[in-house]
């Protein structure tokens, strides 16, 4: 089957067979119609026997009669020389308005008007032979005369619906027709058609189906195979197929017009020679057919390669306009749309003489309303999405199908951002978790040997050592191993706190109680340094929503900082206030050492106020406190002002439902 598609010879054959079949089909259709119109074709043996012949005789005669009388030109009466006639005795009215009355060649007539004017198309007619011709009329094959004696004819008199009623004429009319058609006229061509119809109408049962089926098959085959060429997957387009559709249509149109012009010119010159005309018509049909093939092929190829529309100039212009609008700034676009809407509605309001305008106006308003409503809904969806994203919630990507135009572009970008965002967060969490795991594992490995160190140092201390120096060294070992222990514990805690790898048990806590409890824990240490705690609470109860265990750890770190670094015998202030935003707790103390460090640096891990790191501590206390506060939804800030060391912890106001 595929080979058929690509075979050039089959295609050529099709193009040759197609017109033959077409002629066959048209002929049979024509015959059928003719038979349907003139059923007596089956009973008659020649054209002159048919009703149609008589009808044409009368029609022609009446046409001639009226042409003759209406032109009514004196110089064209009897004896005027027939001019420019190519057919000898055809027509005396040639060149009348440049029209040729070719059909009356075989039909001869003489009209005598009341005022004795004579009109005729018998060129040999003279005053001498007129009476002879008149008397011999009845010897002719067919004749029809109307004199004062009435109508004399050998035609079967039947009522015919002539446009010009000869019967009512006041003039004398003589007319006759000879059987053998010497001139090319209606009788000859009608006779030809009659002969063709008579000879073909019986074969219609065969020709019609063959014609229809054959042509349909050829059409289907050609439509299927046009554009396919051996060795090519795509549709083959020649250079004509590539020129824009409108230009192609124009070229084909021009070709048709040129051919039609020439056909008309040629037809005019040989109008009276039927045989020549038929031959020339057949020859002329060949280029016409070729142009038709060209049109058909290019049309099919264009449709198949989807270039019919796309390769048209109109389409390109429309695309350009759409692109231009799309590339316009949204403000400008909106302005144009708004202007157009305003313009159209204004016109519709001003031209309010018909009910359709009102209907159109309401329709426009509804459409615009729906459009604006849709945009607003889309806007709200995007707004909610951004709000979720901003709050750090997990978000489902927006369905871009639900959005149009600018919003669609926005949604696509937004989805990208959201997925990038969640990926980054996920990666961050993962890496923090890995870090915490690593630190936890390492600290486990450190703790085992450390256990032995601490235990054997302790055991050694219990041995009765004589040497004082050995005792002193042992003291150092004891202190440092204890510090190492604390350091590993703090390290794990700091990494857990900063990675958020902590399970919080949130509840309502009274900060007043918590601070009192924590002060109780540090009582001795504060007293040792002579630190005086001054509490300044404005409210009876200071409730926050937090985890008690970790809150106590925060205060623990702060108080041990104060116990370590505060100036001995100074005052420590603890203030707690309700502010408009929430609860603010302030810890203020005077540092014993000069603080030549920034607050931010202090909060970094492993940084301590004393650069020498001589004092005990891991340097993680403030960092842990900050991380834990943030985990519980609070804020933790350090302020340094000279020697004043101030920590401010803020928590949101408690909600009733907690």
């Amino acid at each position, binding site marked *: 089957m595929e080979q058929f598609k690509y075979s050039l010879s089959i295609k050529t054959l099709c193009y040759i067979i197609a017109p033959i079949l077409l002629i066959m089909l048209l002929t049979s259709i024509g015959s059928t119609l003719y038979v349907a119109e003139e059923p007596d074709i089956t009973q008659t043996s020649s054209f002159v026997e048919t009703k149609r012949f008589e009808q044409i005789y009368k029609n022609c005669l009446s046409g001639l009669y009226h042409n003759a009388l209406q032109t009514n030109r004196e110089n064209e009466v009897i004896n005027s020389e027939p001019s420019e006639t190519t057919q000898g005795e055809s027509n005396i009215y040639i060149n009348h308005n440049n029209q040729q009355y070719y059909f009356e060649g075989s039909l001869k007539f003489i009209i005598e008007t009341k005022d004795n004017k004579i009109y005729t198309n018998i060129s040999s007619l003279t005053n001498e032979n007129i009476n002879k011709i008149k008397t011999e009329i009845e010897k002719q094959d067919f004749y029809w005369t109307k004199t004062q004696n009435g109508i004399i004819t050998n035609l079967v008199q039947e009522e015919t619906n002539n446009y010009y009623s000869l019967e009512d004429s006041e003039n004398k009319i003589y007319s006759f027709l000879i059987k053998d058609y010497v001139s090319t006229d209606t009788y000859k061509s009608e006779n030809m058609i009659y002969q063709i119809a008579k000879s073909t109408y019986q074969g219609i049962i065969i020709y019609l189906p063959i014609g229809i089926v054959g042509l349909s098959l050829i059409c289907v085959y050609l439509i299927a195979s046009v554009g396919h060429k051996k060795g090519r997957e795509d549709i083959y387009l020649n250079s004509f197929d590539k020129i824009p559709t409108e230009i192609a249509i124009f070229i084909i149109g021009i070709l048709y017009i040129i051919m039609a012009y020439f056909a008309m010119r040629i037809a005019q010159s040989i109008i009276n020679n039927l045989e020549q005309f038929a031959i020339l018509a057949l020859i002329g049909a060949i280029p016409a057919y070729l142009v038709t093939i060209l049109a058909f092929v290019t049309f099919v190829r264009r449709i198949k390669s989807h270039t019919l529309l796309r390769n048209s100039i109109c389409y390109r212009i429309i695309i350009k306009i759409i692109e231009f609008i799309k590339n316009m700034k949204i403000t400008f676009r909106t302005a144009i749309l708004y202007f157009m809407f305003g313009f159209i509605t204004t016109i519709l309001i001003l031209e309010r003489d018909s009910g359709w305008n009102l209907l159109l106006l309401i329709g426009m308003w509804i459409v615009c309303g729906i459009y604006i409503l849709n945009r607003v809904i889309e806007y709200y969806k995007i707004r909610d999405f951004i709000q979720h994203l901003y709050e750090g919630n997990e978000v489902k990507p927006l369905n871009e199908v639900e959005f149009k135009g600018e919003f669609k572009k926005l949604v696509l970008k937004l989805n990208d951002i959201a997925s990038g965002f969640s990926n980054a967060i996920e990666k961050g969490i993962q890496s923090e978790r890995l870090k915490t795991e690593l630190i*936890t594992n390492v*600290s*486990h*490995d450190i*703790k*085992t040997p*450390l*256990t*032995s*160190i*601490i*235990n*054997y140092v*302790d*055991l050694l201390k219990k041995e009765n050592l004589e040497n004082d120096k050995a005792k002193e060294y042992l003291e150092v070992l004891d202190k440092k*191993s204890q510090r190492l*222990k604390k350091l590993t*514990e703090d390290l*794990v805690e700091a990494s857990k706190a900063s990675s958020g790898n902590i399970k919080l048990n949130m*509840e309502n*806590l*009274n*900060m*007043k*109680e*918590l601070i*009192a*409890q*924590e*002060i*109780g*824990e540090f*009582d001795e240490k504060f007293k040792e340094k002579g630190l005086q*705690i001054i509490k300044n609470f404005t409210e009876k109860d200071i409730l*926050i929503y*937090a985890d*008690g*265990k970790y*809150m*106590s750890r925060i205060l623990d770190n702060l108080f041990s900082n104060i116990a370590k670094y505060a100036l001995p015998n100074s005052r420590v202030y603890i203030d707690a206030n309700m502010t408009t935003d929430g609860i603010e707790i302030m810890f203020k103390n005077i540092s014993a050492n000069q603080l030549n460090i920034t607050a931010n640096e202090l909060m970094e891990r492993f940084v301590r106020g004393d650069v020498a790191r001589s004092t005990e501590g891991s340097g993680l206390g403030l960092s842990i406190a900050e991380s834990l506060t943030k985990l519980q939804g609070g804020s933790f800030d350090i302020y340094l002002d000279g020697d004043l060391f101030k920590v401010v912890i803020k928590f949101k106001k408690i909600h009733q439902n907690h």
Partner: protein
Amino acid sequence: MYNILVVDDDKEIVKAIDIYLSKEGYHIIKAYDGIEALKYVKENVIHLAILDIMIPQMNGIQLATKLREKYSFPIIMLSAKSEDYDKIEGLNNGADDYVTKPFNPLELIARVNSNIRRYTTLGAMKEEKENRYQTGQLIIDDNTKEVTVDGNSIKLTPTEYNILKFLTKNKGIVFSINQIYENVWEEESYGAENIIAVHIRHIREKIEINPKEPMYLKVIWGIGYKIENIK
């Protein structure tokens, strides 16, 4: 003499524990992996076991589960794993106590003593008497004004005694500092919070083995204090 099984793959730690507990008069049976430990348990009468979690052959948790199938002696887990869920896992799998490495030798000894006493004298002082308050091994006799933990007499100041008695009487209930003050002193508290908190810490230091991780007197941070109700 009580037999204590110590299982840890770190020989120095086992030896150190041996030294400490031998001084307390215990007989130590040393094992360095799970299979070995099971063998000794079959061969000897064990009164208490100290198990490390990360040991070869069979880890401490599995060992504890296995031991619990047949034996009821106390098990103390001793591990470098110090996370809450490690402790919970250990305690849920048959351990009675959990000590983290590096440990304080005194704490370990105290916990061993406490567990041995509880195991050997189980149910000895269960009967309720007039004016006597008890939770776990913490007993307050209001007639003699005597407080004992694991049979050891504790010396408390009168204020500390009153606070402890009030909380033990109402064991399981959380009281804020003000409530404690008002109930013990029977008057409005005014700025006495710190004093009460200090007293409570002192009590904790006296009655608890590890005051940082109290067993009886629990600190509910930001809410108050309570005496745990232990059956």
